[in-house]
């Protein structure tokens, strides 16, 4: 617990200081006539102070134990990477193709399903969601190369 609190407070403290440094580049104005930089500077300064306090509290706290179950970080990382990849190809490949790929990755690689259900499930879901959202609900989705 203590270690994690310290780490979190430290990271936030660094962020607060960085924000303060950046905010100071904006025009500050005056208390009765605040400029664009007034609020950011005040907020960043306050964040820095609060995080310093957090750090002190975390330092002085006794170790609370509070053990947490470990996470399968590789799965989380793989999911995040897959989602970013989806975002980068979505508009070029179009919704159906990109979604098919993403779902196949989840079903096959992450969940280890067999090929047939994984393929069928991904394809069906991509098509059905496209129909429901684009055709019925008129939601904006990229059609991809076939939009022609």
């Amino acid at each position, binding site marked *: 617990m203590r270690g*994690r*609190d310290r*780490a*979190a407070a430290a990271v*936030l403290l660094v*962020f607060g200081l960085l*924000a303060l440094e*950046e*905010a100071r580049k*904006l*025009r500050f104005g005056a208390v*009765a*006539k*605040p*400029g*664009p*930089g007034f*609020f*950011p500077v005040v*907020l*960043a300064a*306050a*964040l820095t102070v*609060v*995080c310093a*306090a*957090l750090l002190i*509290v975390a330092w002085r706290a006794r170790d609370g134990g*509070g053990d*947490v*179950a470990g*996470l*399968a*970080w590789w*799965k*989380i990382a793989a*999911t*995040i990477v897959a*989602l*970013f990849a*989806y*975002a980068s190809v*979505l*508009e070029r490949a179009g919704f159906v193709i990109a*979604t098919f790929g*993403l*779902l196949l990755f*989840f*079903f096959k690689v*992450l969940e280890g*399903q067999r090929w047939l259900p994984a393929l069928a*499930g991904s394809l069906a*879901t991509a098509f059905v*969601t496209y129909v429901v*959202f684009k055709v019925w*609900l*008129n*939601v*904006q*989705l990229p059609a991809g190369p076939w939009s022609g």
Partner: protein
Amino acid sequence: MDVLHGLGYGLGVTLQPANLLACFVGVFVGTLIGVLPGVGPTATMSLLLPITFTMSPTASIIMMAGIYYGAMYGGSTTSVLVNIPGEAASVVTCIDGHQMARQGRAGPALGISAIASFIAGTFSVVCIMLLAPPLTSVALRFGPPEIFGLLLLGFTMVTYLTAGSKLKAVAMALLGMLLGTIGLDPISASPRFTYGSVTLGDGLGLVPIIMGLFGISEVLLNIGAGVKQDVFETRIKGLLPSRDDWRRSSAPLARGTVLGFLLGILPGMGAIIPTFMSYALEKRLAREPDRFGKGAIEGVAGPEAANNAATGGSMIPLLTLGFAPNVAMAVLLGAFLIHGVQPGPLLIKEHPEIFWGVIASMYVGNAMLLVLNLPLIGLWVQVLRVPYGILFPLILLFCLIGVYSEHGNVWDIIVMLAFGAIGLLMKRFGFDPAPLVLAFVLGRMTEESIRQSLLMSGGSFAILLTRPIALAFIVAALLVALLPLLLPPVKRLLRTVPPDDTT
């Protein structure tokens, strides 16, 4: 035309087959998009606007309004079942609603949301009918100083009421406000922290942040924890709230309704802020505040009542003054205008069939929603039985679609994913994302209102103290902040709730 006569006339209008169908389509679509995370009522209403060209003005307004309040019913479903807000206004419902689902009490959680929504929705329609004209003039007196005072009160109320460490909550609130300053400064329109990016000029989007912090992070956590189905393996106990649930919920429900309605009338409030306020209020009033965050039904009933009542409240300025207090109402205003109808003080005289028809349709629509939603609870609960390996890709997909469709911009997906990762870390490190989101919304409004106030007064802070409503709010905020210090017993009551660890 007196109220009862008007209502009877309105019912006659609503019960015409075409209008009844419009009402049903509206609430049905509303429920659907409410359930789907990210796809919001504003976008849906505007996309369906062209369809209404061929309909009568009354039918189209009835349908549009139905989408809006229907979405508030549906939004809670996703919150309870998968811990992802189906609607921005259902963020708070996640906190206790999802905990209830984990304890096998998804049924009562959904049941109380539907019933709270119904009661609050119906109540607000009655209020619209009775109070519309006088309340509008009060709402107009809310200028920047009054809004600033109200926000100040809101902040002090919420500060004491977050689970876990207060310092952490304050840190998250400050971080949220700081993130809110990204983009064009609301007063001088000069870019802040945009680093040459045009897209960042608009700032970070609220929907991607909410979806990321609450939705994506939750899914990531479950994936990492190897959740298959064990989370929901608890037996599902009962589909409807028990007598004990009712006893606990009735007062929060009533308070949430009144609070939501009053706040909904105010410009710029939307349905989100009232839910946070209601949750904060209930937690503060509760005898055992520790139960909040662990499946307290009060934490579902209050906010759910608040968001539906707020929806009704926001109709008041639209119908009586023709001004839209939030974006969704702006779209509804557009629907009026396209049909050549000017909402405003003259609406009731010029177009009684629309004014009374819409009001009567809201009674009918709320009843339809209750009938539609209660039987669906059994069906929704079955969603929990779907293996997580199938459920999570779908949840992610809905989040992706919802966030992309709002602006048609991949950047929003990136923001959502980034906040998903941040949210995951926050949950692991015991930080609550709710204060961040609330501060993100309120921070911008706070900065805007105080700077507008100072511009109005030529740089004098006296403007905050010479206007009675503003002064009342500021005094109330000070009282709320100081009361615990002055009264030790109250302080003990509000003592720090032990931090709840990673969920």
